[in-house]
């Protein structure tokens, strides 16, 4: 009998062990799920930080990699070179031309644009994509051009309908980047004049026409588009003249984004050399608030 009892208890102990082990086996499954996900957060999602991050390795690289590979050959001369170069750099090396850094303000009051409507192409869509302006206040889509804005539609809504419905008090137009290089600039400028006059005929809103932004030298050399610095400059000049014949106000936003070489400031453009970075919209809105 005692043997029976002992064997029963042995069996029971074995069962309880099995149960406990099955419970503990299940634990890593959940932990493996939870450990994989939260590793990255918003740090990877902010494009603005990428330019900052790329400057960091400059100070780290000599310490991390160069020394380990070269120090074995010249361990004594390597580190003095570093200290010497750091100390004598201002005297012995020619002055390094620092890249131009723009200083345009970026502060704006979002409520200032509560009664506004923005008309434009893919560049203008960034106003709502980045969340700076409510989508309902932006009439823009990819490929929209001076010659098509009047007759096109955005999500089934024509520009005329949009203006009559929303009754904006301020209208900002920035169009031409999709057409410059493909069409005659005088024709494009005349289309913008026609667009402004058409809007004026159905709305009492104050209309502001912005010059189109610059491009980068890289984008200019690209075969993906026919944009060139010269063509953009010509269009903006013709646009200014055309708009002077209307009731609208011409705003030279191009100059705000352009460095002394005539191309985009590095800080302002998307990697395609044409579109805006997120912070560029802050510059744009600050500029518009100041000039309208």
């Amino acid at each position, binding site marked *: *009998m*005692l043997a*029976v*009892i002992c064997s*029963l*208890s042995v069996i*029971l102990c074995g*069962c*309880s062990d099995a*149960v*406990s082990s*099955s*419970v503990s086996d*299940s634990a890593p499954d*959940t932990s493996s*799920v*939870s450990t*994989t*996900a*939260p*590793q*990255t*957060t*918003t740090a*990877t*999602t902010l*494009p603005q930080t990428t330019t900052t991050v790329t400057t960091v390795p400059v100070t780290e690289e000599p310490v991390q990699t160069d020394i380990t590979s070269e120090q074995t050959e010249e361990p004594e001369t390597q580190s003095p070179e570093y200290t010497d170069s750091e100390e004598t750099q201002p005297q012995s090396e020619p002055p390094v031309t620092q890249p131009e850094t723009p200083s345009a303000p970026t502060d704006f009051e979002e409520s200032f644009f509560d009664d506004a409507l923005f008309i434009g192409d*893919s*560049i*203008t*869509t*960034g106003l*709502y*994509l*980045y*969340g700076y302006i409510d*989508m309902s206040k932006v009439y823009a*889509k*990819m*490929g929209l051009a001076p010659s098509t804005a009047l007759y096109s539609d955005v999500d089934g809504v024509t520009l005329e309908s949009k203006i009559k419905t929303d009754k904006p008090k301020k209208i900002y137009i920035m169009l031409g980047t999709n057409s410059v290089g493909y069409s005659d600039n005088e024709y494009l400028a005349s289309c913008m004049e026609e667009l402004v006059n058409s809007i004026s005929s159905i709305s009492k809103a104050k209309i502001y026409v912005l010059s189109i932004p610059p491009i980068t030298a890289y984008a200019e050399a690209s075969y*993906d588009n026919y944009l060139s610095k010269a063509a953009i400059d010509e269009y903006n000049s013709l646009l200014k003249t055309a708009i002077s014949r209307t009731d609208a106000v011409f705003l030279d936003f191009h100059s705000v984004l352009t460095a002394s070489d005539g191309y985009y400031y590095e800080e302002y453009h*998307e*990697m*395609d050399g*044409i*579109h*805006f*970075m*997120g912070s560029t919209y802050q510059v744009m809105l600050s500029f518009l608030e100041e000039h309208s």
Partner: protein
Amino acid sequence: MKINVTKKIIAGLICAAVAVCVCGCSSGTATDSSASSTTESSSDTGSVSTAASASDITDKILSEIEFPSNVEIKEERRADYYEADADKIESYSAYVCGSGAYPDELAVFCMKSSADTAAVKEMLEKRVEKQSAAFKDYTPDEMYKIDGNNVVVSGNYVALIICSDNAKATEIFKSLTK
């Protein structure tokens, strides 16, 4: 008399043994049931609380695949991009290319019920059609990202994936939604 005493002792021992057995089984049963209920509840909550949330998934994908100028479309702006019944969504996370230059887009919906995935899938497929129509003439070089495999369903999850490596993003999505 001794025999009776012995019988009583043996009977007592048997009763004790039986009691131990019963207690052992019942405790074993309790352990089993609690273990199984833990397993069930963890698998139940696995799809709700212990499994990856929508933002866990988008974070993981964004950490491994480059999304140009991505900007988060938070819940308060979701309706501008994705029509879905908020009451049926357990978690949601989405990113688009803020500059408008590229079609890259990532959206993950974790629905409370797998029955709710069909409507979201249909909605996201329409979104892909719209983006395809917008970008096909605008940036033809980017159209490889809209390859027809941009909406993926896995359990309670539905994802819209438009990026430079849809296959890898889909693999990550599926690995976190098993």
